[in-house]
């Protein structure tokens, strides 16, 4: 709390605070975790709230101790300063190495992990899209999953009713999602930040409920099939449709559906790389600067002649478009879509990625997306506690580092030769 109460006195106060916090925690945990409903009677688990309360008390003590410590030592901050300088100098190299690593990865991991990697790239794509909206433009969109759903269903239904191929569905799904984004954004973007959050939340639910209930068009909970993409008319199936060639026949290879996944992986890698390029460019462009300016101070923007509605719409539309693109890929990779993939939890997942990645930082967002997709697969227990950990991560990040772990790297300007 304050730096004055140092030493033994401080420790005593921390202990007292920790004890009080633990006591309150016990009161909170006791009825919910201490007894569980089983039918109309109860089962007791008295050790659970006790342990939880003890952990909370210990956590509280450590927190006080941590906060009372002097600022990070100068050696440490020098080190981190040197590191960020090094990173600045070698950024291009690092990106190339990572890209290379991502390119050779499919040959070293099995089929199962290849599919996990594909999912991870889809989340990277989605998170990059949401990052434009939340991280750069500062608009809290809690219904991002709506655009993801529009993309996925745009492909699946487009295929079913219009016979759209995957390649046609990519621009179609992206544009459709962008249209939805602009349609929602236009009236909504004049709102206060909190209202925007809840309206987007409601919009996301509306989309999901409509998909779920409109049986005759969307198939409701039964879902819709979404076929796998072909490569210049070459199929990846075991047998080709009449008049088509399959991949393994064409290249005289034994059949394996791994080719298909590797092809898809590279396709996604290209799209994600394109997206990373786009976001990095945009941040240095007038549009990207306007997004950030809008996040910082809308009134000042208006005083400088910047029209908030159009700037916000562009962020919202571009974010929605990326979400739609991710949706098309998701539908194709699963071969099937149904409404359960588009719940609020999915929006929360993507938001958690953006927040953990440090709102605005492209590299951080990519790292967080990969981490949060791979971890639940690697650790089964993690999957069970995923929601809880996302929630804790959001709260802790906001309390501890609201601007992200690394902070955003700013463009530096030098004077040109003419003085």
């Amino acid at each position, binding site marked *: 709390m304050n730096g004055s109460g140092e030493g033994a006195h401080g420790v005593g106060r921390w202990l007292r605070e920790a004890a009080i916090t633990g006591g309150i925690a016990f009161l909170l945990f006791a009825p919910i975790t201490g007894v569980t409903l089983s039918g109309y009677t109860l089962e007791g688990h008295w050790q659970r709230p006790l342990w939880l309360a003890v952990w909370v008390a210990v956590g509280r003590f450590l927190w006080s101790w941590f906060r009372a410590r002097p600022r990070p030592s100068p050696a440490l901050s020098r080190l981190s300063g040197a590191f960020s300088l090094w990173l600045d100098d070698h950024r291009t190299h690092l990106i190339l190495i990572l890209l290379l690593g991502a390119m050779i990865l499919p040959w070293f991991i099995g089929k199962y992990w290849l599919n996990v990697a594909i999912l991870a790239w889809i989340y990277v794509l989605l998170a990059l899209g949401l990052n434009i909206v939340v991280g750069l433009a500062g608009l809290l969109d809690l219904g991002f999953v709506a655009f993801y759903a529009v993309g996925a269903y745009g492909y699946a239904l487009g295929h079913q009713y219009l016979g759209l191929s995957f390649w046609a569905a990519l621009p179609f799904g992206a544009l459709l999602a962008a249209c939805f984004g602009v349609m929602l954004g236009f009236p909504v973007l004049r709102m206060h930040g909190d209202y925007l959050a809840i309206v987007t939340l409601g919009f996301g639910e509306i989309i999901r409920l409509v998909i779920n209930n409109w049986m005759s068009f969307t198939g409701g909970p039964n879902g819709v099939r979404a076929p796998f993409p072909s490569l210049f008319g070459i199929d990846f199936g075991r047998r080709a449709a009449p008049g088509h060639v399959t991949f393994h026949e064409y290249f005289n290879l034994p059949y394996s559906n791994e080719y298909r996944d590797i092809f898809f992986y590279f396709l996604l890698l290209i799209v994600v790389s394109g997206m990373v390029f786009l976001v990095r*460019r945009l941040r240095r*462009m007038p549009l990207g600067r306007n997004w*950030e300016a809008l996040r910082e101070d809308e009134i000042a923007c208006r005083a400088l002649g910047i029209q908030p509605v159009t700037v916000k719409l562009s962020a919202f539309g571009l974010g929605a478009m990326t979400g739609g693109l991710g949706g098309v890929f998701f539908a194709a990779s699963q071969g099937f879509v149904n409404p359960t993939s588009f719940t609020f939890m999915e929006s929360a997942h993507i938001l958690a990625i953006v927040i953990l990645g440090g709102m605005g930082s492209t590299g951080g967002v990519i790292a967080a997306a990969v981490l949060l997709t791979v971890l639940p697969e690697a650790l089964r227990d993690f999957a069970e506690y995923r929601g809880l950990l996302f929630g804790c991560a959001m709260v802790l990040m906001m309390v501890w580092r609201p601007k992200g772990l690394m902070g955003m790297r700013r463009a*530096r300007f030098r004077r040109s030769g003419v003085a």
Partner: protein
Amino acid sequence: MAALLTVRDLSMRFGGVVALNGVGFEVARGSVTALIGPNGAGKTTVFNCLTGFYRPCGGAMRLSYADGLQVDLIEILGGPFRWRDLSSPRAFGRRLYYKMFGGAALAARAGVVRTFQNIRLFKEMTAMENLLVAQRARVNNQLLAGLLESASYRRAEAEAVERAWYWLDFFRLADDGNRLAGELPYGRQRRLEIARAMCVGPRLLCLDEPAAGLNPNETRELSEWILALRRGHGVTVCLIEHDMGLVMEISDHVVVLDHGQVIASGRPERVRDDPVVLEAYLGAPGEEGW
């Protein structure tokens, strides 16, 4: 000198509170005009109307530039629909456009640019970026040109950076170009905000208490800068200020507001000796000066 800005009968109410009641004044082209008055007199409300943040309940605000361009600031704000609009699709279209996209942004594009009493910089962006954002009209805003870094885009960008450096030098902020605006000391933030306003390319620069919180040295510098802006950059300045020393030194014309009305206006010396003004400030006629 001809009037750049003519304000007539401006009135503004918030619920039952009358903030402005028939305010009228003129700002001569190339002048420094000060808006003074006790706290709550409605000075900032006048600014908010001028710069399009509030839509006045009545009155007229008109800009007329030396090149003959006339701007009706009220129309820009997007007034309520009138029956007459129905007979004229053009008028209807204009009103609809201004309703959707009008307001402060258009006022700024028309050349009325302001600073704020409580500094409003983009704190998490560098000083340079602050100045670049302000140059919306000059940079190449096309998405594709930017993504492909076309020649015209790069040229526009380089010019914008040059201009930003010019204004940083002008306000002695050259060393702070790449620092975050929020990290600058207070006095520099004030300067940066004026520099940012200048980057928009204003014809009428509205400064809301530019000297608030500055020390006497900084205030003196500020008055030199304001005069230099008017002299060398063709800017007309309209400012709200409580520092009477500054007002007396630099303004050509002073407008005194009290209770939402103009109680006096004229040359600074004349206003200073006006008993009505003294009464407004001190509550009763007295011998104390400012």
